[in-house]
């Protein structure tokens, strides 16, 4: 990554973290309906992988999808308005946090069904192959999702058809209260690639440059028609499973440990040490984004509710 790209990447990660911090604060105040899962700690994955894509490329996301949305270029106003169920939201308030999508930017949906997006990305890649339009599809999913049958079926199918898809596992060590080490037969999700003849690597998911390098290789391979790859990115879950999770199932130490390697601090420190970034510039970035967040919340909360008479709208074409 060039210095410029690293700065861009840092900014993109910072945006996601600050977005999620704000979500936590606003959720605690009440008024944000439903439940939300934050992407904090995994920023380098969305930013690194999506940074390796073209705008027309496709992604499928998860219940923890705010980071993917922001990194793929979804408009901030539309995201926040969606979290509040307003007609001005990306899904016109029909979806909410767990079902947020932005098809205009190739974001084919968060998914409240664990593993639900994996096969959809395979389908995106199939469309690309049939249409010959060169698009690549990326499936984001958690370590827990890799225990769903559909993960295994999707890898096999993508492999035999040599589809342009990249499977990106965000391994945060936990699926709700269940540790990865208990629930999976392998010590690394990357080990699962071999069963489907899919090249797989495991990288530190808190290291933006490492994620980006691995993603670029996988995307290039897909784009050249050489088939799918599996990319495991390890980034411990910094926060509760959802906002408000008491997390009694994991000890303080485990939770603290998960916060040790911070993708943002880590890159910022490097860039400052190398003289590419100043503390003042970093603060200016924060301030600017914070202002944008304020305006997005104002926009969202001023937005109209959907009309109850429209409850059956959008069911069919």
């Amino acid at each position, binding site marked *: 990554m060039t210095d410029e790209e690293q700065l861009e990447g840092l900014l993109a990660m910072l945006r996601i973290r600050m977005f999620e911090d704000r979500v936590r604060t606003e959720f605690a105040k009440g008024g944000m309906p439903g439940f939300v899962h934050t992407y904090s700690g995994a920023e380098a994955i969305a930013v690194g992988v999506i940074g390796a894509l073209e705008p027309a490329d496709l992604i499928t996301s998860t219940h923890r999808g705010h980071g993917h949305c922001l990194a793929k270029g979804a408009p901030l106003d539309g995201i926040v308005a969606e979290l509040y169920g307003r007609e001005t939201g990306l899904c016109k308030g029909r*979806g*909410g946090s767990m*079902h947020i999508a932005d098809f205009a930017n190739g974001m084919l949906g968060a998914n409240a069904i664990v593993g639900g997006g994996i096969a959809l990305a395979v389908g995106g890649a199939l469309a690309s192959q049939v249409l010959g339009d060169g698009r690549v599809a990326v499936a984001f999913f958690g370590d827990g999702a890799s225990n769903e049958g*559909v993960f295994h079926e999707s890898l096999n199918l993508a492999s035999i058809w040599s589809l342009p898809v990249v499977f990106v596992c965000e391994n945060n060590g936990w699926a709700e209260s269940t540790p990865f080490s208990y629930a999976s037969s392998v010590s690394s999700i990357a080990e699962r690639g071999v069963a489907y003849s899919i090249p797989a690597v495991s990288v530190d998911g808190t290291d933006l440059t490492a994620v980006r390098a691995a993603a670029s290789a996988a995307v290039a391979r897909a784009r050249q028609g050489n088939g799918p790859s599996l990319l495991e990115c390890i980034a411990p879950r910094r926060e509760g499973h959802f906002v408000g999770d008491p997390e009694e199932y994991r000890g303080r130490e485990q939770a603290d440990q998960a916060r040790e390697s911070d993708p943002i601090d880590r890159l910022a420190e490097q860039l400052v040490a190398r003289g590419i970034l100043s503390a003042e510039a970093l603060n200016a970035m924060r301030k600017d984004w914070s202002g944008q967040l304020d305006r997005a919340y104002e926009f969202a909360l001023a937005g109209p509710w959907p009309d109850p008479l429209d409850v059956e709208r959008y069911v069919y074409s």
Partner: protein
Amino acid sequence: MSTPDEPRPRRRREPTYLDALTFALDAAMDEDPRVIVMGEDIAGGAGTGEPFEGQMGGTWGVTKGLFAKYGPTRVRDTPISEAAIVGSAVGAAMAGLRPVVDLMWASFAPYAFDQIVNQAAKARYMFGGQAQVPLVIRMSVGAGLRAGGQHSDSHYALFAAIPGLKVVAPATPNDAAGLLLSAIRSDDPVIFLEHMSLYRLKGALPDSTAGIPLGTAEVARMGSDLTIVTIGASRQIALLAATQLALEGIEAEVVDLRSLRPIDWDTILESVNRTGRLVLVEESPAGVTISDAIAAEVNERLFGRLKAPVRRVLAAASPVPFSPPLEDAWLPTAERVLVAARLVCDRLPAGRD
């Protein structure tokens, strides 16, 4: 939770619907070592081998304490693998266990649909009575939590359409305990649907572990002017409406179906035969519902006794929307039950629908 409930008495220690489920699971595990429970996060913090204070006990804490009491052999945290969870439970049931699966939300059941529909439901019949599948699959159903499309389904009609399954939807703590005990003792696969708006509902638990027979409805309120048949949380809505109707001089009989397959036709037909009027309340998207089947049966059997067309109060014909005003419009409400009841009783001002 936003679905209307009966006013809840706030006396401390009065058990809730959740407590009732724990009570029944504990009693069933205690009386029969073949009963095991399995599901995602049902112990919580798995892999330590030792019980500890902070264990989750499932999304709603129903299985909290069971791991400490019965150990990892009988209380099993699973990976997120619904097809394998249900499929292995079906096989274990065929081979002599009595598994109770916790699938979390009913919206996750479609991953296990083959195991439920093709394996559990058909085995006894296809194999000429050789197979026995004593299996319970518990799941949380219902809208109202602002959880959106993929966390709010009830799938009542979907499950009830499948011969070979028994399907129950208890609406009170007493019924939750009694029906769960009977479901676990049943030699057939039982789909056990728990509406999330009822989880904190308080009420007495049964004095014994005798259980409540599957396939029986309950008259939740007696009345002579019309019959309101309800499913799951609709019972609470109908009781609210019935209180209001009484003020208007209409005495509604509320029949809580409790068992969606098989249906207790005797209780329904006896009631409608007396009242001559029927309103059905069900949190299922309009289109193809259990209420439709009941209306058809009543029409065939009691046509001459009906004083008004049967009316249904259903959910909107869409997935469950996230946005609060849309979700509120989607759900059946006490107000809509009132309107339907007045209509069948001919009590609406002329010109109004």
